[in-house]
């Protein structure tokens, strides 16, 4: 039994290392090589040139504000939504869950473009409306600012935060809160003094994951930042690649190394801050059943606030997309636009054989990829939380390697790697690349769920003669179901809309949705782009609903056992 446990860590390091280290090694080689390939004469020139750029300091400042701001927006909103959803008796809960996950399914380019249509200072719809109502001279909002970038990126990353926080909140030991209340604390005081502190690992995990993600994000910096002339690391890297025809990915990788270093530092910080994991254990043995707080009179006002928030933040942009898919070209909505609406873009997309093939491939990658990814994540999270050796720390860091590299660069790293294997230009290269890059989407929700399961439970099982695998299957996994479902949903929706790797690795026969969407974007065909985007959202919604239903059913079966 003990030998299975010790063998687990090294074998996982080998598997995860193979997945994530190979492309990064290729990028490291490329960043030290002359010329534009992965191999060349050794040179430091690329580092010297990129880090002595006088504009670099300003870019770092913008990047720090942008990523931390996005981390705050996403985490605070997710806390608010997840708390109301899992811990109170607010009505229409199922709806909430779907709404807080929707941004995960929308291609980021589309989401950013719809916000530009709503809030651009020239003729953004909300600006026009407010100008009319309040008789204003100038537009009250300008999306092309750091604030605008933080808002949109924060919303796009809201599902990551939500799917990490919600399972942790759901797996909460009621006795802690009851003790607080018995001692005379109010609901609010219990929340701030007991609930939130106990959730610290999950809150930090969400905050850090969003920072790392926004560091690698490209859609918001390019669509909202560039028109406002606000440059962050990702757009700076793009500038290096796009200026000139011989794109130097080695130099882009050299700049990307600072993102990598920042991410690894954040992960170690996180491990340090949550090092006394015993403090956060909440499911010990008996009495595990999260209680609901009766909202009483606050119920409907709170629901109204959340409803309004969801409407402005999520429903409205999706409506804008739907509208864009129906009008012949980008138009401000008026009587004429409505009279010109038709289904042409939809029919064009449905008649396009490549779009249909890409639909099939993306669904396959989403379902199979997420399933394999979550299985791997369960083992990795188990080691990270329960073994906690130095090797486990190493495992946690390498699981983040590909993820924390800016997207436009990591794809090339994978290409440099896969071209040396027989997997090149097959759908398996996409599958492996996806799992390798987005492993943290599986690992994060699962670790924050693992942290809350007391080792007494496992020890009891072992005392009764259960082996490691038996303990995992009978004791740990059933308690992990909410985390598993979250991880699976994050991965599946991510894979269905994955762009950065696919654009480099997809070939005829292995086209995927996001690549098809990018082609429409490059040609400026926003109508078709929106139509295909909405189809993508529908597919992801179906996948999420089915996954949630299965999750709910499994939890119920375990309870009746």
């Amino acid at each position, binding site marked *: 039994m003990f030998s299975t446990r010790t063998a687990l860590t090294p074998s996982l390091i080998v598997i995860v290392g193979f997945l994530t280290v190979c492309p990064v090694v290729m990028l490291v080689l490329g960043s030290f090589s002359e010329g534009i390939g992965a191999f060349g004469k050794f040179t430091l020139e690329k580092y010297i040139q990129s880090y002595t750029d006088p504009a670099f300091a300003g870019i770092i400042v913008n990047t720090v504000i942008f990523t931390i701001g996005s981390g705050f927006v996403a985490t605070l909103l997710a806390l608010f939504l997840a708390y109301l959803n899992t811990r109170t008796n607010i009505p229409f809960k199922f709806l909430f869950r779907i709404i807080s996950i929707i941004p995960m399914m929308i291609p980021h380019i589309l989401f950013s473009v719809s916000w530009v249509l709503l809030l651009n200072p020239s003729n953004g719809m909300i600006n026009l409306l407010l100008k009319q109502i309040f008789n204003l001279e100038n537009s009250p909002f300008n999306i092309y600012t750091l604030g605008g970038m933080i808002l949109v990126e924060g919303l796009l990353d809201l599902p990551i935060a939500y799917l990490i926080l919600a399972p942790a909140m759901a797996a909460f030991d009621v006795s802690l809160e009851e003790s607080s209340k018995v001692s005379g604390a109010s609901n609010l005081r219990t929340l701030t003094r007991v609930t939130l502190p106990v959730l610290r690992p999950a809150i930090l995990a969400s905050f850090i994951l969003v920072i790392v993600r926004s560091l690698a994000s490209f859609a918001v910096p390019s669509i909202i930042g560039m028109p406002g002339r606000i440059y962050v690391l990702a757009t700076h890297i*793009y*500038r290096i690649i*796009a*200026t000139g*025809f*011989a794109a130097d990915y080695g130099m882009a990788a050299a700049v990307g190394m600072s993102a990598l270093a920042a991410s690894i530092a954040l992960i170690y910080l996180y491990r340090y801050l949550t090092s006394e994991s015993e403090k956060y254990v909440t499911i010990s043995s008996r009495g595990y059943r999260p209680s609901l707080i009766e909202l009483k009179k606050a119920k409907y006002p709170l629901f109204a606030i959340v409803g309004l928030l969801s409407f402005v933040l999520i429903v409205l942009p999706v409506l804008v997309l739907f509208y864009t898919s129906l009008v*012949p070209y980008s138009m401000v909505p008026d009587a004429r636009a409505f009279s010109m609406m038709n289904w042409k873009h939809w029919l064009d997309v449905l008649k396009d054989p490549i779009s249909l093939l890409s639909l099939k491939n993306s669904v396959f990658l989403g379902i199979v990829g997420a399933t394999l990814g979550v299985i791997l994540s369960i083992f990795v999270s188990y080691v990270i939380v329960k073994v906690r050796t130095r090797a486990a720390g190493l495992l946690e860091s390498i699981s983040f390697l590909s993820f924390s590299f800016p997207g436009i660069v990591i794809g090339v790293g994978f290409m440099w790697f896969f071209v040396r294997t027989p997997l090149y230009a097959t759908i398996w290269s996409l599958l492996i690349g996806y799992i390798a890059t987005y492993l943290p989407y599986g690992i994060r929700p699962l670790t924050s769920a693992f942290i809350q399961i007391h080792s007494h439970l496992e020890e009891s099982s072992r005392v009764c003669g259960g082996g490691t695998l038996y303990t995992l299957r009978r004791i740990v996994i059933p308690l992990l179901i909410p985390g598993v479902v979250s991880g699976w949903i994050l991965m599946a929706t991510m894979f269905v809309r994955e762009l950065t790797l696919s654009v480099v690795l997809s*070939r*005829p026969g292995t086209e995927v949705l996001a690549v098809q969407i990018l082609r429409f974007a*490059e040609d400026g065909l926003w109508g078709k782009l929106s139509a295909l985007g909405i189809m993508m959202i529908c597919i992801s919604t179906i996948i999420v609903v089915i996954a949630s239903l299965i999750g709910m059913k499994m939890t119920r079966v375990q309870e009746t056992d």
Partner: protein
Amino acid sequence: MKKLAILLFVVLMATSAYADQALVEKAKGEGKAAFYANITAIEPIMEAFTNEYGVKGEYTRISTSKFLATVLTEFQAGKLLADVLQSPLPIMELLKEKGVLASYRSPAAASYPAWTRKDDKIQIFGIEYVALIYNKELVKAKDAPKRYEDLTNPKWKGKIVMANPSAHATTISWLIGLKENVFPSEKAWMDFVKGLAANKPMFVRSFGPTPAPVESGEKLIAISMPKYIITKAPAPLDWARVEQPLLGTPRGIAITASASHPNAAKLFVDYWLSKDAMQMLADKVGEYVLHPGVYPPIDGIDKAKVLPIRELSDDEIRYWGSEFKKIFDAP
């Protein structure tokens, strides 16, 4: 004279058709021609090729910023899957330097202007032409710029959208092309660039996102491509008929030295350069092609003078990129 030309043409066509037959048979044996390019909506051309010869035309679209990296990575690993490559001329030149391209002079290019084949490897067939594209519902034709200098008029302040001139290689090349082909002096050109910068254009990533803000009325005019008038119809877009010539980066096509379907590759290049295929490219995608007598169905384009921009080295593009950054970022 005209009759003689027609006769000559018929004879040429007949001989090339004869030569074709042997090639077609060999190409059929190879089964397919794999084509890497970054060009909009050419599926109808691939389909027509497949139907005409029974050889499958397989299109892989690779965006310009990843084109060189992808082709070289595959080539150096001995796994280049492409038989035929198409991209902006500067990239084709770099590929030629690295030994990726094979020699092939297509008989179909006989009628193309002489400058389109400087060597026997790359055949230039089109120009990615750039023009000032405006919203014709919000700007009257008579108010549209008559010369490039008109863009510096303060009436366009805050109304222009363009690809980022500090990063977008094609836009940088276009500005340099204006200096060398259009403006009488370097000073006149610099005044134009500074005047354009003073009008605070909105920057986007590349040409792709330039037409949308003009269609919706967020901006009025774009430094963009006339082909969007075709691909984005019925959007209210028109191009400013400037007196000066239009400029653009040439597009080249070539077959690869490592082609696993070399005959299919030749057949494909022949077909690509034929009048039929070029007409499709002009009609469906609005491309400016160099086959004589073929124009995109955009009003007035057949009368415009369209010039190729000289090839710029990447060092030159980076140098000007950082110069433009200073000029456009100035308060």
